[in-house]
């Protein structure tokens, strides 16, 4: 086999090997999905956030339709954690029950010494009002300043306090 052919093969092999690595990295790049975390609050992120918002609108149309029918105009669309270690976390309200607690299968896993493992749940009733119910927690769930004893509808923007964590519903 001529020297030239071997040299071409040698360089070609290295090129192919690196191509594989580069393609693998591209796969990783395109693999960034799962829970979509949208950073907000900093200015340079604003552009990207808009893009993502546009994409987000395009992405789950069926979920939107499913909940959209029942929802009234003033209905909250998201649950926001406004104080505590999870500050800034939001969960879209799509008609599902949201469980809060230290248990790992909770929708919002509270890393809070004052929270019980199954602390409270937030769910929509048949009119689409969101209800918060304390699940027999040790330290209680507070809506505004009062400790919950029965399932209670949540007014928009009212703080729900669990230990050091504060949650509210927003539009």
């Amino acid at each position, binding site marked *: 086999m001529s020297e030239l052919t071997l040299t071409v093969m040698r360089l070609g092999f290295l090129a192919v090997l690196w191509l594989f690595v580069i393609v693998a990295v591209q796969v990783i790049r395109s693999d960034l999905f799962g829970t979509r975390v949208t950073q907000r609050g900093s200015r340079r992120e604003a552009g990207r956030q808009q893009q993502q918002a546009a994409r987000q609108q395009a992405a789950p149309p069926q979920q939107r339709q499913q909940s959209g029918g029942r929802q009234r105009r003033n209905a909250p669309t998201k649950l926001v*954690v406004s104080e505590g270690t999870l500050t800034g976390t939001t969960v879209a309200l799509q008609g599902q029950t949201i469980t809060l607690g230290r248990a790992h299968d909770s929708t919002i896993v509270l890393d809070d010494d004052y929270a019980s493992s199954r602390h409270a749940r937030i769910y929509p009733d048949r009119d689409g009002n969101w209800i918060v119910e304390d699940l027999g927690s040790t330290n209680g769930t507070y809506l505004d300043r009062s400790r919950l004893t029965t399932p209670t509808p949540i007014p928009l923007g009212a703080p729900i306090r669990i230990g050091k964590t504060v949650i509210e519903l927003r539009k």
Partner: protein
Amino acid sequence: MSSTTNTPTHHTSTIGAIGAPSRRNTELAMLVFAVVIPVFAYANVGLAIDDKVPAGLLGYGLGLGLLAGVAHLVVRRFAPYADPLLLPLATLLNGLGLVAIWRLDQSKLLQSIGVAGGKATNQLIYTALGITLFVVALIFLKDHRTLQRYTYISMAGALVLLLLPLIPGLGANVYGAKIWIQIGSFTIQPGEFAKIVLAIFFAGYLMVKRDALALASRRFMGLYLPRGRDLGPIVVVWMISILILVFETDLGTSLLFFGMFVIMLYVATERTSWIVFGLLMSAVGAVGVASFEPHIQTRVQAWLNPLHEYKLSQAGSHDGILHSEQAMQALWAFGSGGTLGTGWGQGHSELIRFAANSDFILATFGEELGLAGLMAILLVYGLIVERGIRTALAARDPFGKLLAVGLSGAFALQVFVVAGGVMGLIPLTGMTMPFLAYGGSSVIANWALIGILIRISDTARRPAPAPASNPDVEMTQVVRPS
């Protein structure tokens, strides 16, 4: 009530679910690529050595392709949301290993000393066994959390595996390191399997104990000092790793297990102090043992003065110490490879003689593919580790997280220990490069490791089930007192 958009800490984030694609077709495409590269390399070796395309091209190509195809189909069926890269990356390394072993098989020198010849066929059989174990792991391990039940059984199992080479009559002393057992004509390296079993034990144990290990501590000079009694586990694991070092005289195995534990301890507790303690303890242990263990001393000497040791071994020094010439030979192999390498089949790494196709296989890659090729291979290892850590990040249960970190950490440490040893960064050890090196235990155990990682990644990446429809909007209406 402060508004979240104004919080100075950049915690503000929105978590929204989106449908995750399964990425199985990406995996298939990458897998085809990962099989084509070794086939190309194989043809290249044949053309360089014999001026013709080797006769076994179809056989090896089809063999590797078939194994990869089976693995892919099983993943498609039993772990549809698994990471798309783990399988192709492992297949590529395994395929390249096969080619390098076959290439060394062609060497008359290695054939004459019985190190080479037909080893590639053996390796292909080991690969088949490894893929079988991979398939079995995926089919029978429906959920990695079942492994959690066997936490303490795993501990016992791992100890037995680690102690096996010390049993007289069963253990085999191969070039000074006692990390093999011999059954009939087979030699098995139980440490490779112990790695996986031990990761299961550490994950199960740390998941339960991590709060005690993380919270009960005092702060001192920016470090959290654990209480004396919480040091128990790390001391026990350290003692075991020291015992391995003393009795099996293998730095690599010892470093691997202790390092894996420290990594998992750090991940479980988020305390930097464990890393500091771990590094201190392993340094003290290694230096302490090296001061009296002759086998380790030889290795350290070969690491510090490779050229001197080479001269001694060439001169036939009869001072009763086995002088290693390989450390220097490996460095020469890397040197003669240069940046772009000599090309497949045109190097002389067979001069390393024994262990040329196992411990020192990286020297063959370094010589024939050069720095460029070696870096690509190390990157492939890096990507496997990255996907493992990524799986740990995505995993929702703490056991899965710890297990994925432990397995990928052990994999990374093994690559570091072997590559570092061959390249002269740390003293040489008796471990083998995962997937590349010749050796049944290593290939089989690492395929099982990839299988478990794929299982965890499938669980982690599987989209959450759709929210249960609200019973109140169904036909049955619940009348509630309001």
